[in-house]
């Protein structure tokens, strides 16, 4: 559990960090909270020759709501997300997920940016970002670009991020009246990656009809997965439990789990079904929906 030797740099700006990444292409890794990278290094599964620590770049840590967007800086600690009054009151899905990421020690070090761009299908925040329609701002040698969360995840540990790019901000559509979200996770014990977890986001009009819906699934496929059919089945309805049950079945069909130590694939699909239905009830209630 001891990593091989590596060099360590702690640049003061994002551009300096990008310069280091470019100069050491292939040998350098960005270190933010380190809660995924350092265990891999201790197991000698990852042996980067250089770490570029961006956790000291103060400008990357913030939670701001402006007229259009909720902006979360990439180096914002998970615990800061969980403690934010804006997040807890207006984006409860993120608080649900944040509270279930690993354990307090990890949440104290781990960052929002690290969680969304690591590319592990077991990370909890990516499903939220897919369900809520987030975009990621990334900066590289050529400047900034934004990538929709749903375009970001290509394969396990493979994302749309170029080797010399750094994620700087997560942008989430500003919450409106009639929005409601929820994240439900089943784990073997506290701190574990999900057996399966479901993020749902609903938007209701003033009559209580679903105008848009997003459902995404954690740890039941090679990447985080969208359950598009399940979400669209709810749009245009004033949903009942039967609709939520049907959406749960569609979400289970979208899951592509593998059998492993967290249980057989069929069970995981069953959990997706149960959690989707329950998360929809919770999100519906939070959106002000009445049955």
């Amino acid at each position, binding site marked *: 559990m001891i990593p*091989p030797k590596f060099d360590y740099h702690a640049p003061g700006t994002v551009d300096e960090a990008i310069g280091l990444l470019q100069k050491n292409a292939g040998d350098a890794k960005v270190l933010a909270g380190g809660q995924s990278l350092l265990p891999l290094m201790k197991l000698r599964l990852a042996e980067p020759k250089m770490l570029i620590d961006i956790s000291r770049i103060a400008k990357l840590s913030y939670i701001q709501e402006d007229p259009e967007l909720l902006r979360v800086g990439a180096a914002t600690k998970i615990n800061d997300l969980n403690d934010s009054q804006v997040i807890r009151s207006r984006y409860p899905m993120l608080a649900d997920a944040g509270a279930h990421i690993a354990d307090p020690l990890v949440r104290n070090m781990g960052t929002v940016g690290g969680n969304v761009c690591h590319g592990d299908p077991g990370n909890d925040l990516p499903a939220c970002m897919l369900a809520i329609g987030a975009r990621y701002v990334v900066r590289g040698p050529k400047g900034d670009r934004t990538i929709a969360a749903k375009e970001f995840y290509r394969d396990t540990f493979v994302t749309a991020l170029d080797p010399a790019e750094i994620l700087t901000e997560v942008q989430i559509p500003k919450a409106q009246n009639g929005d409601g979200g929820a994240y439900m996770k*089943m784990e073997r014990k*506290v701190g574990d990656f999900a057996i399966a977890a479901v993020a749902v986001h609903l938007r209701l009009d003033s009559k209580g009809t679903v105008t848009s819906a997003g459902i995404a699934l954690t740890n039941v496929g090679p990447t985080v997965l969208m359950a598009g059919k399940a979400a669209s089945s709810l749009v245009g309805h004033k949903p009942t439990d039967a609709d939520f049950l049907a959406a749960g079945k569609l979400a289970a069909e979208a899951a592509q789990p593998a059998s492993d130590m967290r*249980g057989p694939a069929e*069970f995981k699909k069953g959990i997706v079904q149960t959690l989707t239905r329950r998360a929809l009830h919770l999100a519906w209630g939070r959106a002000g929906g009445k049955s």
Partner: protein
Amino acid sequence: MTTTIHGGIGQSLARKEDARFIRGKGNYVDDIQLPGMLFLDFTRSPYAHAKITAIHPEKALKIPGVLAVITGKDLDAAKLAWMPTLMSDTQMVLPIDTVKFQGQEVVGIVADSRYSAADGAAAVEIDYEPLPVVTDPVKALLPDAPLVRPDKTKKSNHIWHWETGDKAGTDAALAKSDVVVHQDLYLPRLNVSSMETCGCVAQFDTMGRLTVWMTTQAPHAIRTVFALVAGLPEQNIRIISPDLGGGFGGKVPVYPGYVVAVVAALKTGHAVKWVEDRMDNLMSSSFARDYHISADIGATKDGKLTGLRVKTVADHGYADAAANPSKFPAGLFHIITGSYPFDKAFVEVDGVYTNKPPGGIAYRCSFRVTEAAFTIERLVDGIAHKLGMDPAEFRLKNFIPPESFPYKSALGWTYDSGNYAGALNLAMKMIDYPALRKEQVEKRKRGELMGIGISSFTEIVGAGPSAQFDILGIKMFEGCEIRIHPTGKVMARFGTKSQGQGHETTYSQILAEELGIPAENIAIEEGDTDTAPYGLGTYASRSTPTAGAAAVIAARKIREKAQKIAAHLLEVSPDDLEWKDYKFQVKGVPEKSKTMADVAFAAYTNPAPGTEAGLEAVDYYDPPNMTYPFGSYVCVVDIDKGTGQVNIRRFVAVDDCGTIINPMIVEGQIHGGLNMGLAPALYEQITYDENGNMRGNSFLDYLVPTAVESPHWETGKTTTPSPHHPIGAKGVGESPTVGAPAAIVNAVVDALSPLGVTNIDIPIYPWKVWQILHDKGQN
């Protein structure tokens, strides 16, 4: 009014050791720093069974700071490549030509820093030729199974057969029983997962004297084993067991790392430290359990138990390195008749080799008692269910009655005392059992799954009487040495070794009560073989039953001498004095008295004519019998049909450990023990694939339950003192670990019984429950 003394028996004295532990001031093996100290790490085998064709250490030796490598061939030159186990088997220190399990230590690397040692371990190249693997002990017994130990004369994976009881009588009793229930049970392999892993620091001084600071529960036994195996003169070996962060049986065996560290210290002339990391510990430290049990239980149609027959395959990995008393290859498994008066019982166990790490040890239990208690408590539930009787009513009908003690069991144990119905009745009252059954009826009508499970276990601890109990010939007595200083302050030393149990507090309280000296004036020391009296160590809940008794008797020896000194001071005859209210009083004249402090001062300044100076005593206590703590646990579970999750709604634990010395410590022991009973029921197991790869060798997959998973434990007690222990104490550290699993599993099976379920394998993961519900169309 009763006189009390500060810290006497029955007081919840704050633990003396906690002042240093909660401030981070404990002194553990990894805290030991010596000048010039080197570090040892190992290159481990990726294969479960393979021939080593070549070892290439060159790259490792080129790494700055790497000083030496040690291989099996190096050790073989000193006849140290193999070592005996406590069960008279042999195990490798380092392999000469074959590895037998994944994670086995193959090459030791000695370096001047922990980092260089790890780099060296990663750089050693080893060529292997994989050999066929067997990990299932039942398959290992088939004629064409790969042979795990071709070095043995016996060309089979079968190690030993052990049996006890009346086979023919039991077969006959079961044949004529109205009802017989057969049940196969598997208790999976576990790792004790102490907070502190295993390790040591070995150092030879300039005179060639060896000191080893070691994570050991039994320092004296280790010293003698080192003397016998390595041929070192025993006076030149000093084993120091400093503060230990948990043991649970895992720190009883001798591990290869200890031996290689000593060899490395000899080879380099420097102190050498070896401390396992968590993965090392999970992969190669001794396992517990791994018992494949097949049992039959019989009863008459009106619900009287008739017979019990148990056949077991014990998976020992590639060596039987169990930590049992030498005469008991299956430990105390034959306590399996439990709290019930069977006329006939028969138990047989077969030990088997597989390509897995060697063992096994106890996991906070007295030599296989958990395996026994789990089996009998599952079977009793099974037969009650088959008879359509309430499991509580069935137990109450069958318990060994209080007036039958001492009770001789069908398998030969003599239970000292018990009141099993008393404990169960209290537990049922605390949880309001009738109301729960009523609620369950209502819930079942609504299709909800709620279950109530009972476990009324009997423990057997305090090993043990010298006629039956020894480890490699050394009898399982326990020593205590007391010295009272001139100012009335006490230093007492023991051969046991606390790993978190709170001995410094508990022993002080026993001595405070017996000597009339406040507990705060009593210092307790354990763990240094140069200073402590001989003893076999702390495991199997034996410290209070054995060393606690030695403390009492040594203290009473002191009182005997002190009485003479007090008589001298009071100018009366010793016979005119009585020990009352913690002092010597002239009979009928209580104002004429001397305290133990008065006597101690006189013992050094004004000794009585004809008595030796000083005030000291030693006792080596050979217990006349084992002690038999017991308890009754009731568990209530609710099952989430959508996820298969088992929620423990309530858990009431009534324990009876005889006389209680410190109620707070006992309560803490019970809470911790219950958590380690919860663990195998719902969370922990070690499994291997058919190639012998360990599935999940970190805490990511080895699921040690935390405070979040723990239900609110509700505890209660009854007190039935041991008649043969000098203060009636029985030992308690392990009872809850022994008793809890069956209560939880019985509750889950009870919840699922309307669906026709009669058993579910542990650990009960949600997927197992979900699968059952899914198969029955329930979700």
